[in-house]
C-alpha cells in the first residue's frame, strides 16, 4: 500500500513521459507479486537485495567504500547469503532525500528487493522510515547516524549496523575529562549530526567532571576558512578541543588547526570521522596526534580484522574504512537472518533480524540492542605516522 502511494505521489509530482513509464513498470511489478508463487525478493532460491549508497555528490567516497565492503562479503561467500543466491541491485542515493528517497522506492517497488542496505544521509534515512515501515521491507542502515533512526522514530523494519551520533561522541567524554586538565572547547559543523555528536560528548564529558571552555557551530558546507574560529579557540584559553567534521571540512579544519599552530599546544579530539579513510590521506602529517573515538580502525589487532583488511586490500588495492565494515557487517547480518527466516516475507525477515545474535565482525563482536542499534565497543584512536603511512592507531578500548 505504501509502495503504491509512493508511486502515485511520484506520478503526481512528475507528470512526464519517463515518470509515467517508471510508474507503469512499478505497477507491473506489483501485479506480478500478487500473482507469483513466492513472496517479495525473487523466486525460489534467489533473493534480491537493494544496495542504496551515494555514488555521486559529496558522499560518493563513503558510498564506494560501502559498496566494496558489501561486495567483499558476498564474494567471500560465493554470492550466497543464508543459503540463497543473492542478486544485488545498486541504486545511487545521491546527496539528499530528493534523490535518495525515490531511489529506495524504486529498489522496493520495481526491483522488489527483499531488504535494502545502505543510506549515508540521516535525512534520507528518516524520510524513508515510513515507507519501509508501511511496505514491511527491512532497511539495514549502514551509516546514517541520526539518533532518532533507532530512537524516537524506530520501526520493526529499520535496523542499524553502524552507529548513533550521540553514542560515538559520548564514548570519548570520560576519556577526555580524565586526560585534560582544564576546559575543553567544542566546535562542529552546524547541522544535525554535528549537534548530536557534540551533544552526546558534552553530556558524558560533564557527567565525568569535565568543563566546557566554549563552543561554536560553523555554517555547514559553507566554511572554507576556519581562522576566525581558531583564533577564538586560542583566546578562550581552552586546554583541548573536541570537534566533528567530515569530508572536505574535516580536511580543511585539521590542516588549518596545524597551520595556525594550535596542534602543537592544544590537543585535538574528535569523533573518528574527522580522520577516517580518504580524509586522513588528504590531511597527511597534519593529522598526527589527533585523538578520536570510533567503533573501528584498520589497526585493530584481532585475527578477524587482519583477515578482513588483507582480503580487502587484495581485492581493491586500498585500506578499508569504517564505512566498508558497516556494509560488510550488514551483509553478515543478512547472511544469518536469511538462514533463520521461516518464510519469504519482509515480516519473516524482520523477525529473523532480531535473532541474529552476535556478529563476529572485523570491528569486534557486536549485536543489535533492543532499539535495533549496534551495541558495540568504541576505541580510542590516535593518528600516528607508521613508517611513512598515516594510520589511526588503537590506543585502548573506551569503557
Amino acid at each position, binding site marked *: 500500500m505504501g509502495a503504491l502511494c509512493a508511486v502515485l505521489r511520484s506520478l503526481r509530482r512528475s507528470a512526464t513521459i519517463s515518470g509515467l513509464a517508471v510508474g507503469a513498470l512499478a505497477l507491473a511489478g506489483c501485479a506480478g507479486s500478487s500473482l507469483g508463487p513466492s513472496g517479495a525478493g525473487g523466486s525460489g532460491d534467489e533473493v534480491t537485495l537493494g544496495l542504496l549508497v551515494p555514488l555521486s555528490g559529496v558522499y560518493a567516497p563513503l558510498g564506494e567504500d560501502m559498496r566494496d565492503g558489501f561486495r567483499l562479503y558476498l564474494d567471500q561467500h560465493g554470492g550466497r547469503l543464508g543459503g540463497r543466491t543473492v542478486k544485488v541491485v545498486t541504486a545511487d542515493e545521491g546527496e539528499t532525500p530528493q534523490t535518495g528517497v525515490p531511489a529506495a522506492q524504486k529498489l522496493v517497488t520495481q526491483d522488489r528487493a527483499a531488504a535494502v542496505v545502505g543510506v549515508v544521509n540521516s535525512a534520507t534515512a528518516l524520510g524513508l522510515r515510513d515507507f519501509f515501515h508501511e511496505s514491511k521491507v527491512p532497511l539495514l542502515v549502514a551509516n546514517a547516524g541520526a539518533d532518532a533512526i533507532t530512537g524516537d522514530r524506530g520501526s520493526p523494519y529499520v535496523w542499524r549496523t553502524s552507529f548513533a551520533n550521540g553514542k560515538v561522541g559520548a564514548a570519548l567524554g570520560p576519556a577526555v575529562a580524565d586526560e585534560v586538565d582544564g576546559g575543553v572547547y567544542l566546535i562542529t559543523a552546524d547541522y544535525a549530526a554535528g549537534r548530536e555528536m557534540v551533544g552526546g560528548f558534552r553530556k558524558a564529558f560533564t557527567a565525568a567532571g569535565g568543563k566546557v571552555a566554549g563552543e561554536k557551530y560553523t*555554517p555547514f558546507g559553507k566554511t572554507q576558512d576556519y581562522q576566525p*574560529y581558531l583564533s577564538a579557540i586560542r*583566546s578562550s584559553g581552552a586546554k583541548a578541543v573536541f570537534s566533528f567534521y567530515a569530508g572536505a571540512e574535516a580536511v580543511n579544519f585539521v590542516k588549518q588547526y596545524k*597551520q*595556525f*599552530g594550535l596542534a602543537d599546544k592544544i590537543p585535538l579530539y574528535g569523533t573518528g570521522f574527522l580522520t577516517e579513510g580518504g580524509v586522513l590521506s*588528504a590531511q597527511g602529517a597534519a593529522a598526527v596526534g589527533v585523538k578520536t573515538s570510533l567503533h573501528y580502525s584498520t589497526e585493530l589487532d584481532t585475527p578477524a580484522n587482519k583477515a578482513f583488511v588483507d582480503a580487502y586490500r587484495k581485492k581493491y588495492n586500498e585500506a578499508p574504512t569504517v564505512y566498508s565494515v558497516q556494509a560488510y557487517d550488514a551483509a553478515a547480518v543478512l547472511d544469518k537472518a536469511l538462514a533463520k527466516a521461516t518464510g519469504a516475507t519482509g515480516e519473516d525477515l524482520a523477525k529473523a533480524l532480531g535473532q541474529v545474535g552476535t556478529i563476529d565482525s572485523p570491528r569486534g563482536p557486536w549485536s543489535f540492542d533492543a532499539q535495533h542499534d549496534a551495541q558495540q565497543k568504541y576505541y580510542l584512536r590516535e593518528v600516528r605516522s607508521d613508517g611513512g603511512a598515516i594510520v589511526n592507531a588503537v590506543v585502548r578500548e573506551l569503557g
Partner: protein
Amino acid sequence: MDTYLVSVLNGLAMGSLLFAIALGLSLVFGMMDVLNLAHGAVYLVGAYVAVALLGDGGGPAAFVAAVLTAAAAGAALGGALAAMTRAAPHHLDQALLTLGVALVVAELLTVAFGSDVHSLPAPVPVDGGVRILGETYPVYRLLVIAFGVVLAIAVHRLVERGPLGAVIRAAVADRAMVAALGVNTGRVLVGVFAAGAALAAVGGVLAGPILGAQPGLDEKVLLLALVVVVVGGLGSVRGALLGAVLIGQVQALGVALLPEYASFLLFAAMAAVLLVRPAGLLPAAAGVRA
C-alpha cells in the same frame, strides 16, 4: 585586538584569491555580456592541475610549472567558451550552455581524479608558519597576499593605463562604437575571456594549499565570485578588487566579530550593497547594456 588583526590579515589573503578568480568573471560579464557559469569549473581545473603536478609535494620550480600549466589550460578553456558563447546571443542560452560545460568538466575531473578530497602541501620553503602578533600564521598565506597586491597593480596598469586597456575599457562601455573605429572586438573579447579564465585557473593552483580540490568546490567558488562581482560592480578592475577585499574581510573579520551570524554575513553584505548601490560599488564607468 590582536586576534582581530590576524583575521584582517587572513581576510586579505582570501581577498587576494577572490580577486584573481572574480576579475575574469567581472570583465567577461561586463564586456561581453556573457554570464560565464563555467568559471568555477575553470578554477577547479586549475586546482586539479595542481593536484596532478604537486600532489606529492614539490619545490618552487614545480609550483611555478603548475601555475603556468594551469594558466595554459585555463586560457584554452576560456577561448573555447568564448567561441561557444558567441553563437548563443541570449542570456538564458549562455547560462545553460556554460552551466552544461561546467557540469561536463566537473564530471570529467571526478572520473579522472575520483571523488575523494585532495589536499596540497604548500611549496617546501614556505610551508611553515611565522609568529605575527602572538599567533602563528602560515607563510604561504602572506605570499598569497603579496601575489594579490602585485596582480592588482599589474592589472590596474594594464587595463586603466595602457593602450590595450583603453580598448578593453572602451569595449566594455560600447562595443559597437569600438568596432566602428576599426578594432577587431571579437579578438579583444576572446583575449579577455581567455585571460580571465587563465587567472581563475591560476587561482585554483594558488588556493590549492588552502582549499584543496574536491568535487563541488567549483560551485562554492563560483558563488563567491558572483557575490564579489555583484558587490564590486560589473566590468571594472577596481570594482572586482574592492569587492574581493570586502568579501574577504566579511568572511574573516565579520565571522570573528559575529560568529553567530556567520552563515548570513556574506549575503547580508551583498544585500546591503545592493540596497545602497544597486549597480555595485564601483561599476564600469559607462552603463552596461542591461
